[in-house]
């Protein structure tokens, strides 16, 4: 990826705001989208990107965020299906080169991984981290 890239972050909850803030302070262009205006309060003070209020399942909202120009889209709302839909729209309808979606349900995550959508499951990651620590600290075979 180029030195300064253009990111679209969908969902400005705790994770979305953290990602947007860190990418922005690393010098990238960031547009963050949330359906609620009040969500943008999660952003760090230094955030210098743009904010778009709206439902990201509407293509007009994605276009408002200039998705055609994006190098990367991160779909991190708290709704699995919304993330999966937006990720696919970005990848297939707008040719965004790098697309990732957060998916809580591990079964759903596995299915979409098979379809070639990059997914991250917090449930899976947490479980793995717990098990790793347990196996180290307690020398348990897991």
């Amino acid at each position, binding site marked *: 990826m180029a030195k300064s890239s253009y990111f679209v972050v969908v969902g400005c909850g705790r994770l979305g705001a953290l990602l947007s803030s860190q990418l922005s302070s690393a010098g990238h262009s960031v547009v963050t989208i949330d359906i609620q205006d009040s969500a943008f309060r999660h952003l760090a003070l230094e955030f210098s990107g743009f904010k778009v209020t709206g439902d990201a399942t*509407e*293509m007009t909202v994605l276009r408002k965020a200039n998705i055609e120009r994006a190098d990367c889209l991160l779909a991190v709302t708290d*709704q699995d*299906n919304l993330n*999966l*839909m937006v990720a696919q729209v970005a990848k*297939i309808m707008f040719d965004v080169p790098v697309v990732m979606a957060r998916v809580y349900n591990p*079964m759903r995550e596995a299915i979409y991984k098979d379809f070639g959508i990059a997914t991250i499951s917090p449930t899976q990651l947490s479980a793995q981290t717990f098990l790793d620590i347990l196996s180290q600290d307690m020398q348990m075979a897991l």
Partner: protein
Amino acid sequence: MRVIVIGQEKLVYFLGKHFVAKGYTLTLITPNQAEAIALSHKLKATVLHGDGSDPAVLEDAGAYRADVLLALTAQDEDNLVTCQIAQKRFGIPRTIALVNDPDNQPVFRQLGVSVVFSATEILGHLIEQQTDYQDIKALVPVADGNVQLVELTLQGHHLAVGQTLQDLNLGEAIIACIVRQGNLLIPKGSSRLAAGDRLVVVSRAETYEAVYSVIVGETS
């Protein structure tokens, strides 16, 4: 036929009733528990309470053996994901999704849903046409709205009354059948149209207005 329907409220109830009457094996998935219980009392169907886009719920609903799945919730993203999982994971051959935002229609098609319909578009279309043409009984868009199927009743003052079909210049449209006093006539070039005939006309959507003016004699 084994059908899975996902949605809520009256739409799934009445649709469910219709499918059961046709003899289909029906499974309903609805997110609200109280509604699921009520539906299970009212319908001869298997009713599950849960999230239809959850693979575990779909499996419980017998997705591996289903022939058709209809996703009819108010959330476009849920309908899309449900259809994709149904098709790709469980191999359901035909998936039908409701889109609420008409702009999402091409998106859903591109992403593999077999049939996509937008209630907004259908209603908008119907109202537009119905207010324009009052003799029309039914108007059904087919082939993704490119072709229209129209039923209209000829009135005495209409231009086509007394003419044979070969006299009428219908262009690319055809009169697919004529219903005269309850009897079906297969149209021929020599068939002469009479007042009271009910015609089923098939035309391209964009030429419909021209066809209408040839049959009726005036455009509104």
